[in-house]
């Protein structure tokens, strides 16, 4: 037997109280683990989404970087359109490797669903180099490529036809995109010319995605593009910065709520352990009589507290890891911008950090009760003898 065994067995004396305390720490740890995982995963996801889009710059008529990011990555409609005749001028700017015009339309589908149509040209494939297609690229003007999720919802396979009553147009599925984990999975990709015809926007574009030869020449290319009249240029970095800035305030709020949860957890543990110490004053006095030093008593109580918090922390991170999909959904609902794919990702460092914080809570909350217990004099054992 050692002091650890003694502490562990002490916790079994009031199992309900110990379990409730562990539950409180587990909740706080699960929240901490989820938020830290989200914090790590979000930045990575935004950058990955931007990188996967292949769009180093987005050109539109006007707007802000946030709107441009939403358009470039998630689709959407804006009331103003860019004239298609700007594309040659954009392509001619030195440093530009590929240019793809896009016409994006959101059409009400079944129920509350919005069908997002992406009119794209052949050069779009140069931007989405990571795409893996089942089937082929567009074979004619009535071809359609379905995102993986769109194909699942529409229950269509390559070679089958799909009819959209809302735009009174029928297409033949030439390809289905393998799941990318991005917003692309939910889109309907059709040839640009067809999109312009179907949506009666001949010669118009929602925007133009620009891919560069050399990312270090970003500013130079931007300066060149801005010489073209009536266009608005936003870089991928500006889009990322804007997204992170916008989400930053939401993150601050979430971490503020989390801090309150952690403080409540500390106070809960402190309350439990202090109550336990006050109930056992005489017992500590007797321990002192049979040779326990103040340091030994201090350790017994501190170990008890750390065990409570470590158990809560382990349960919390397990629950947090298992419930990451739920956390992803909940966080996604409160964010002004959420990238596609998983935002809450498992990271061993976050796992270790969360456990570290749980143990820290234990150590912090256990300090006063441990000090209090270690100062119980041996006389306490015989005070009412």
């Amino acid at each position: 037997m050692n002091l650890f065994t003694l502490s562990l067995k002490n916790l079994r004396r009031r199992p309900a109280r110990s379990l409730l305390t562990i539950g409180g720490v587990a909740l706080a740890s699960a929240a901490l683990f989820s938020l830290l995982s989200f914090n790590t995963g979000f930045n990575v996801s935004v950058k990955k989404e931007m990188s996967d889009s292949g769009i180093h710059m987005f050109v539109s008529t006007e707007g802000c970087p946030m709107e441009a990011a939403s358009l470039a990555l998630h689709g959407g409609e804006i009331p103003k359109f860019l004239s298609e005749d700007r594309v040659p001028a954009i392509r001619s700017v030195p440093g530009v490797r590929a240019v793809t015009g896009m016409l994006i339309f959101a059409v009400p589908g079944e129920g509350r669903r919005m069908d997002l149509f992406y009119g794209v040209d052949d050069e779009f494939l140069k931007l989405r180099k990571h795409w893996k297609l089942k089937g082929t690229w567009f074979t004619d003007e009535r071809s359609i490529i379905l995102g993986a999720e769109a194909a699942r919802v529409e229950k269509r396979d390559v070679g089958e036809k799909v009819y959209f009553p809302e735009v009174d147009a029928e297409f033949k599925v030439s390809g289905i995109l393998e799941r990318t984990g991005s917003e692309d999975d939910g889109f309907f990709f059709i040839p640009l010319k067809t999109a312009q015809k179907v949506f009666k926007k001949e010669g118009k574009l929602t925007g133009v995605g620009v891919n560069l030869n050399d990312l270090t020449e970003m500013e130079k290319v931007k300066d060149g593009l801005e010489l073209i009249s009536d266009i608005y240029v936003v870089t991928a970095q500006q889009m990322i910065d804007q997204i992170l800035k916008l989400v930053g305030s939401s993150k601050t709020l979430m971490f503020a709520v989390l801090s309150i949860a952690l403080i409540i957890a500390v106070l809960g543990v402190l309350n439990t352990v202090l109550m336990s110490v006050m109930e056992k004053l005489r017992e500590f006095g007797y321990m002192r009589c049979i040779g326990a030093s103040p340091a030994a008593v201090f350790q017994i109580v501190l170990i008890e507290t750390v065990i409570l918090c470590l158990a809560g922390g382990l349960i919390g991170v397990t629950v947090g890891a298992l419930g990451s999909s739920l956390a992803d959904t909940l966080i996604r609902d409160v964010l002004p911008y959420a990238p596609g794919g998983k935002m809450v990702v498992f990271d061993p460092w976050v796992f270790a950090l969360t456990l570290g914080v749980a143990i820290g809570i234990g150590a912090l909350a256990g300090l006063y009760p441990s000090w209090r217990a270690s100062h119980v004099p041996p006389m306490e054992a015989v005070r009412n003898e």
Partner: protein
Amino acid sequence: MNSMIELSGVRKTYRRGSEIVAAVNDVSLSIAPGEFVAVVGPSGSGKTTLLNLIGCIDKPDSGGVRVDGLETSRLAERGLTKIRAEKIGFIFQQFFLLPTLTVRENVELPAVFLGKRNGAASRTGELLDQVGLGSRASHLPSQLSGGEMQRVAIARALMNRPKVLIADEPTGNLDSKNAESILNIFRVLNGQGLTIVMVTHNAELAREAGKIVSMKDGAVLPANV
């Protein structure tokens, strides 16, 4: 002959409201190694306070207390802890067994606190056999009778091979049969040379001791009173 315990002019007072009460007043006492001493007297006579001073769980206001040749009244807490752990074994009326620990673990506890766990398991086995509880080692205190609990407390008090066994009303919560059993253990331990200082109200038990110290109003009465 050297004393195992030596008290010289010991005084200990307590405040009760505005009144200062001398629980032990100018007590001098010498207990030889291997002596079995019973401290008797009415309630409030200062028996337990005297025991606490000998056991180093309390300090005198004045006077000196020596245990096994060591002056304890001026020792700091660290030194007193060491004496309690190494030289003194305590037995109280209320047993004070930790309810979540088994009999074996309760007995081992002083060795854990002393940091000498080597050989603790075999020593525990020996002691439990000595008090007739070898078969109850894995039981919890709640599964024992009062007499058995006190025997576990005796085994625990002996764990670190103390020089002095201090017992405060060790049979106070026991029936006569169990009290007799405890007394038998004390006789054996004393026969092996252990110094025992016991506070008791039980006249029969006191008569078993080789020396009786009678107290009244904080003072030790002369031997023939």
